[in-house]
């Protein structure tokens, strides 16, 4: 039903990477490379030191990768999927950020999301907020 409506209203996929979207893709791309390469290296060399922190970095990398792919692909389904992932990302940053502050002992080594992403100039917490705003602005117009 909703799909049929969309097809009538918008035959082409919504482009999510025009204008500010391109900047978002850039930052998400950087975070993918950062989180994935970091977690691969840490898991490969030193997993036992901080299993939780390194696994979380890996999960963050996967989430970032999926959001990047959705943004580049475009379209309403991808937009919704990206929206869900950005919400999950935001929840993750806030949870892990608070967790690292409340119980630093659980994290012998830092993750991408430690202290709300302070090691990454707070980009991890700013990125989902701006992405959610951007995705909301680009939602298909419902008649």
């Amino acid at each position, binding site marked *: 039903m909703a799909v049929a409506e969309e097809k009538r209203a918008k035959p082409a996929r919504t482009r999510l*990477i*025009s*204008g*500010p*979207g*391109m*900047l978002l*893709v*850039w*930052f998400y*791309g*950087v975070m993918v*490379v950062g989180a994935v*390469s970091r977690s691969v*290296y840490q898991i490969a*060399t030193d997993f036992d030191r901080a299993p939780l922190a390194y696994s979380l970095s890996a999960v963050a990398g996967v989430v970032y990768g999926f959001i990047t792919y959705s943004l580049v692909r475009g379209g309403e389904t991808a937009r919704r999927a990206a929206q869900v992932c950005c919400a999950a990302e935001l929840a993750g940053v806030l949870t892990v950020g608070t967790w690292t502050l409340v119980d630093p002992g659980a994290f012998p080594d830092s993750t991408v999301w430690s202290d709300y992403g302070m090691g990454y*100039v707070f980009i991890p917490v700013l990125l989902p907020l701006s992405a959610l705003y951007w995705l909301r602005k680009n939602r298909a117009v419902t008649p």
Partner: protein
Amino acid sequence: MLNVLTLVTGVAALLLAAWCGWAAYRDQPTKDWHFIGMAVVSLLAVVQLVVGIVLLARGEKPDQGTTIFVAYLLGAFACVPAAGFMSLAERTRWGSVTVAAGGVVLAVLEVRLYDIWGG
């Protein structure tokens, strides 16, 4: 040698960021001159990559490990060209903003490279 190169590349990256930020502020896309600037910064990153590998081959050891060092060298090398291609796809001020962001990211990578190599 490498530290001088790191400093020069970092400063050049910041200049590129400021220049493209200025273009974005004036609502302009990246132009030929900006791409020449990106080429200069990319060339510095390539030279850095080569010098870094030569130093490793001669048996010098980075403070924080060879793998991380090489990973950051590759990241620094790919950073500005990637942003450049994205600004080719986005011919508005947002393309300029993306390259400016690329310059800032490269500058951060250079700071990390300095730490990893061990000043």
